[in-house]
Every structure is written in structure tokens, then in C-alpha cells.
């Protein structure tokens, strides 16, 4: 169990070499071995989606994936969304439209929304609502999350 393995992947474009136990989840590896604590753990059983990150552009529950499974993968987290001082259109829209309150679910929703809009920038509201149902939020009642993602989609289509 404790025999550690080397894992090499990129996180937000930077190559990372870490040495972890095979049982280490990707979420724990990001948080503890890479120091990227923007990825949050809300349930550690794959329901809440707070830990959503993109692995090779696909949204995954990083609490349900082992770090060793990310060998060679391209991982994207909330910390990589903004370009320097410039917020990503989704971050900007969440700010403008009050798409967050306590902020704990926010990184997961942002990464989920990034993957949805990258796949289909013209996604219709009913499909978007369904796709965003993957994650839980306890503060906002979801209304302003939906509004934020729709606003960002419009902005990103410009």
C-alpha cells in the first residue's frame, strides 16, 4: 500500500513530477503534492462535484480518480483559469451575477462550466441546466449560477 509511485502530468500547463501512494486520489495529489488547494473536497464520494477538474479536457471528479491514473495527462484546475490579472469570462460572470456565496462549490462549478462551454458554446438553457445538475451548491439555489454561465457563454461567443 505504501510503495510510492512516480507520476508525471501537467497541471495548468506546468509539468509536475510527484511521488505518491497508489491510493492517493487525484484531488489529494493536487491539493497536497501540488499545493493547489483551489480544488475542494465536499463529499469524497463523487456526488457533490466540488472537486471537479479537467483531465484531458474532460470533467472528472478528482476525488474518484487516483493520481496514478493521471500519468501523462493534462490536468486543468481553477487556478489555471485566469490569465494573469484577467479573469476568465466565467469567473467574471460569476462575479458580476452573484454566482457564488460561500465559494466552496465554485471551483467545481467553474471547471464543469468550462468543459460544457468548450464542448458546446451554443448549448441551450435546458441542456445547460441538465449538465450543471452534476454538481451541488447549497447557497445560491443555482439561479445565479445558471445566469452566470449563460452570460459567460454569450460573452465567449463574441
Amino acid at each position, binding site marked *: 500500500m505504501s510503495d510510492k509511485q512516480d507520476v508525471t502530468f501537467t497541471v495548468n500547463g506546468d509539468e509536475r513530477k510527484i511521488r505518491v501512494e497508489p491510493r492517493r486520489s487525484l484531488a489529494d495529489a493536487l*491539493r497536497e503534492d501540488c499545493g493547489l488547494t*483551489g480544488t*475542494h473536497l465536499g463529499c*469524497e464520494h463523487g456526488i457533490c462535484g466540488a472537486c471537479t477538474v479537467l483531465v484531458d479536457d474532460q470533467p472528472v471528479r478528482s476525488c474518484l480518480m487516483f493520481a496514478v491514473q493521471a500519468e501523462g495527462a493534462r490536468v486543468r*484546475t481553477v487556478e489555471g483559469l485566469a490569465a494573469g490579472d484577467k479573469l476568465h469570462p466565467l469567473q467574471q460572470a460569476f*462575479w*458580476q451575477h452573484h454566482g457564488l456565496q460561500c465559494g*466552496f*462549490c465554485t471551483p467545481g462549478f467553474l471547471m464543469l462550466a468550462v468543459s460544457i462551454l468548450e464542448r458546446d458554446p451554443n448549448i441551450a438553457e435546458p441542456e445547460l441546466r441538465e449538465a450543471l445538475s452534476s454538481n451541488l451548491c447549497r447557497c445560491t439555489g*443555482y439561479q445565479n449560477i445558471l445566469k452566470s454561465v449563460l452570460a459567460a457563454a454569450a460573452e465567449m461567443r463574441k
Partner: protein
Amino acid sequence: MRWVGRPLPRYEDPVLLRGRGRYTADLAKGARILRFLRSPVARGRILAVNAPPEVPMITAAVLGDVQPICPRLDRPDYVPVAQPILAQERVTYVGEPIAAVIGDTAAEAEDLAEQVAIEIAAETPVVTLDQALAPGASLVHDLAAQNTLIDARFETAGIAASFATAHHVVEFTFTSGRQSAVPLETRGAVAAFDPATGRVTLSASTQMPHLLRTGIADALGIAESELRVVAPEVGGGFGQKMALIPEYVIVVWAARRLACTVAWIEDRLENLSASFHARDQRLQLRGAFDAEGRLLAIDADVLCNVGAYSNFPATCGVEPLMALADMPGPYRVPEYRARARGIASNTCPMAPYRGVSRPVITAAMERLMDCAAARLGLDALEIRRRNLTSDFPHTSVTGVVHDPGSYREAMEAAARVVDFLQFRARQQAARADGRWLGLGISVFAERTGPGTPAFAARRMVMTPGFERVELAMDPSGFLEARIGSSPHGQGLKTTLAQLIADEIGIAPKQIRVVAGDTDRTPYGWGTFASRSLVIAGGACKLAATTLRERLQSVAGQILEAAASDIEIGNGRAFVRGTDLAVEVRQVARAAYHQSHRFPAIAETGLAAVATYDPYGTFSNACHIAIVAVDIATGQVTIERFVVVEDAGQLINPMIVEGQIHGGVAQGIANALYEKVVYDDAGNLLTGSLADYLVPTMSEIPSVEIHHLATLTEASVTGAKGVGEGGTIGAPAAVLNAVSDALAPFGVGIFEMPITPQRILQLLREAGCKA
């Protein structure tokens, strides 16, 4: 430029959006990780707790004279019970902490925990209200006869006569399932021992850092100055994080004992099983009405299953006493009798949860109104028109004073928004097509921002209420506001900055609100009871007025004018009616660096302190839900949800609406989805988020919000609290709507959550063959 009333984007957000917010678990790097061993059975005697010698354990035996948690009410109808920090002889609920181990990593701590063997002689638990109240039921606590921890009563003289002369008596039993607040961030703590000072800094996911400091210091028998409590970013609380928990006492104890940093990050199973629950209630409600449908009297018997222990500081009286005091709500109720009991059981303890009792009592009262309307042949609006109070201030039958509100106006406005009569026509047409639509109304008044008088009336030994604020302007003209309250997602730092900005005449971005650090802020009670904007906001306004006067005095001297002729706006102080002006930052610099010129502020400098402790103020709202019920599947779809609310002066309407959105979502969850379930042996069956159904974006509709703004003098800012209203009003609207939809089948709903299975069962019992 006026800042109050503007939907200013929050100053809290950029750091959170970038993933740079520091929540408790983010502070655990380098800490040793503590893991609790918890009771796997609901009730029993601990026979042995054993571990191999290489696995050191923390057990009750090694804690020595660490004191139990014993919350108190100063009332003869309350039985105080002491909750041990770690169970020693007996266990009283599944999830109760028995021992703890510490590893270098979370994984290692879990490995160590697996080596601990706990032997318990299990006994038959009391799980439900019926079991706890059955004659001869075993007692959760020997001191509490009939498992009754609190038994509060209220009765007016004319109650019997009112029921005897009533034209109509409506009565039913109403039940609310047990709920969990489920903040997305679980509880957690990082306790860092400082070898230089011997102090411990406890970072914890809490709504009340100062109360934690008091409670932990008392339990450990240390001075409060030995402990600093920090609430970093907190990922939601909703009441679950406003109580002292044994886990935090242990974490601080361990950090002191081991002289290192110790962290405990709760997992979701622990949160669902061993963090606090709420809302497990059964009410028997009787209403006496005259021939015109006017309420003559209410008779209520309220039973709350409060679990195994009482919570600190609110106590297990919080739900029954709230029900007792606030049952009449927005209605004129001349005669009232109530009995409200808190019943102990071998289940997880309860604590306040957003709305506290009022989601349940509002649902029951609003069902009563609709049932009475049906009995009298009135519509849902008319029965309420005849009973809502419109004379303010209104003193309720229990002596609670309601400041001016818009109870009736809010309902009429909501009825216009949904076009009540047009809906009835649409409903008839849909029924002809075999589609079952329903409209449900909920009118309520919410006591917000209660100060010490309200809590003293409940006879709490620890009486929350006041908030203190310290303002200090630095030599560059930047203002710091240190508050005792402790926001955790409400955007309070932004709203307070808006309030202070207007009062002083500087921009909100020149103001930093500091909260959640007992070393940096004045003693305060934290964020709960829709109180922070009302009370901390009031204190901010009072302190800001004083600070503005001090700035005016300095500026007046600089500009050679009377202080009373100085106005401050947009960061400049100027002589009224002239172009003589000086920047506030220049005023600040002069006040510090040439202080000999300004004897008037020699004692205070550019600082001000204020304390505010109001009676409290009532916000109000009307919710209307329109639902469709599929009688083949029992599925309820909310087609429309309208809120007309009155929170007085809105400081930041965007934030107010966000509170309502989130509150309504939790209310809908209460009405339709969420229920903590135990089996007969007291095992939790809803130990994951796959079993405990927090609704998603697919279930929660968009909410249409309309605002009314009654001017109130009950708060110095004119603002009323708004944090809990959505949760209070929504269940009643949904249950009335489902009942309205199913009225043709003779089915009425008197329970929540009303799940598809239950709807189908009720339809079957009513003889409906779908």
C-alpha cells in the same frame, strides 16, 4: 454618490473565484491529522477500547478533568444534560466520538484507526418520538424523565371558551422529517501550538469564533487568552456551525498536549451522521374560527426529537421555544395555548438550522389557513385577509412585538403577480385534461436581528444579542472595520462597507471589514438568526457617524471652518457651499502626524467604537408556488415560484436576492426531498449524498422576486434581516400547492418531505386508481 441600495459586486469574490480562498482544510498542510473513532451503535455500554501499544489513542481516560459540554437555560422546565467530550461509559448515538488517533497524514490516521477495537454491549435504542415517549421507555438520560429535556407551556385564560364557542374547529397532525443543513464544506479544525507563547491558534469552520473560544477555554479550564480562534473562509454553515462540538475541544487539547499542529477535517459520513440535525418535529394543531373565518384561538402541541444531547449555546430548547413563541406568526390570534417539548433520543443531536422551527410552524399554520378556507368556502386569499394583522406595532399573544411590515400588501402583490383568478381558470382547464396543477400561498413574518431582550426572554443563560464594531482609519485614509460577527458566504463585508461608505463619505473599496479572528475583532456572537446585517450593520452605522464627526472636526480645523459646516463625500471633506476642500487621506495624515493640532481627537484618534443591541425587527414575505403533480408517478414539478418580500431598506439588492434564492432552495428541499432516515436500531440510512437528496439545478426552479420596503425604526439602518426567510416560507407554499393540486382526490398534505412514494400512497388510500 450613494452606495446603499446598489447591487455592488462583492469584494469577497475575486479570491474565491481564483481558487485562492483559504478554507480550514487548506490550512492543514504540515499538520498531524486526527481521526475520530465513533460509535457504531445507537445505544450501549462501552466494554473496551483497545489498540496495539504502537497506536496511541486519546480516550476519555486520558483527558483528565476536561469538562463536558453542558448548555443551560434558566428555566425549571428544562433539564440540563452534560455531553462528554469523548464517550466513556455509554454511547448514545451512532457517530458519537469515543476515541481519537493521530497520524502524520490523513491516510495514516485512517490506517491507525482501523487498528482500534471498540467493544460495546448494544442496547435497544429509542429512535423515534413514539419510542421515546412510550410508557416505560428506556431513558437516554437518567435525569430526564420521559426523555423530556424541555417542556414549555403557554396558555391564555380564554382558550377553552374560544374553542367551545367556535363555529369551526380545524385540526390535524403535521410532521416534518429530520433534515441536515449540509454545508458543502464539512466541519474542520486546525489547531496550531505556538511554542514561543504557549498559545494555540484554532482555525475552524465556524459561524461563531468568540463563542468557540469561550466554550473550549471553559472545557479545558484555560484562560480565553490562551486561545485564538480564527474562522477562515467558511464554506456554508446554515446553523450547523454555530455550536461548540467535542471535536474542536479535542483538537485544541491534542495540539497543547503534543505541542504541535493538529488538524481534523470531517468527512461527509461524519457530517451526515454526527454533525447536527434539525426539524424532526410533530405538531398537533387546532384552530378555532368564527363563522366569518376569523381565528379565535390556536392550540398547539409541539414535539421535537432533539437527539441525544443539547447544543451549546442555543440548547435543545431552540426549536420548541421558537415554536412556542412564534406560532401565531403574522396572524391575529386572540387566545393561544401551546405545549412545546424537546424529546431526547438515541440519534444525532439537533442544532439550529436556517429558519429554526419556523419552516415547520409556518407550514403547519399555512395548512391550517387553507383547510379553514376550504371548510368555510373561502379562497386562500380571503381567509388570510381576514386574519393577517395590519396594525403596527403588533404585539402577539405571546408578547412578541412586530414592527411595521406589509403582511397583507405582500400577499396581495404576490396574488397579482401570479394572477390568482386566471390561475384558477387554467387549473380547471388542466383538470379537464387530466393534469393536476396547484397553487400554494405562504405568508409569514420572520423575527430577524434579535438582540439580548429576545434571547433573555427565552431564558438562555448565555444571552446573545449585541454586536460591537471598531473602526480605525489609518494615516493613508484607509478604513478598517473590525466586527464581532462572523460571515460565511453572506457577502457581509461588502454590505457593511456600503453602509460605512455612505455614512462617512468614502468609497467602499477604501474599507476593509475584518471578521472571524478573536485576536483582531471585538467579542461578538457570530452570524446566525438573520442578525449580522441588522446588528453589526447598526453598530457600523453608529460607529461611522462618530468617526465622520471626528473627521469633520479635523477637516474643519484644517480648512478653518466650523466642523458643522464640513461635509464629506467622494473621499473629500469640503466646506459646505464653497470650493474649499481637503482629501480625506490628507485629513487622516494630519490627524496622525500633526496630532498636536487636533486636541479634540487626542483621546480617540481617528477611531470609533459602537455597540448595538436592538430588540429585533420582523421582515415578511409572501411565497406563491405553482406546481404540477403527476398522479401516475407522484412527481411534483414546480412550475413557478414567486416571492414578494419586505426586508425594509435593502443595502445590496443583489445579495438580498441571493439569500432568497438559496433560502427558497433549502425550503423546497425540506418540502420535497431531504430526509435523514434511521432504522429501528438507530443506524443512519442516509449516510451519503447519494442517499440524502440535496436537490440539484434540475429540481430547483428560478425564483421571481419582488420587493416591498416598509420603513422601520426598529433598526438604525432601516434594514431587516433576510437570511432565513426563503427557507421559512417555501415549504408552506409547496405543501399548499401540492394539496391544492390533489384536492379533487380529497388528498391534503400534512407532512414533509412529501416524496413521490408518499403522494402515491396517499392517492391510493384516497381510492384514486391512477
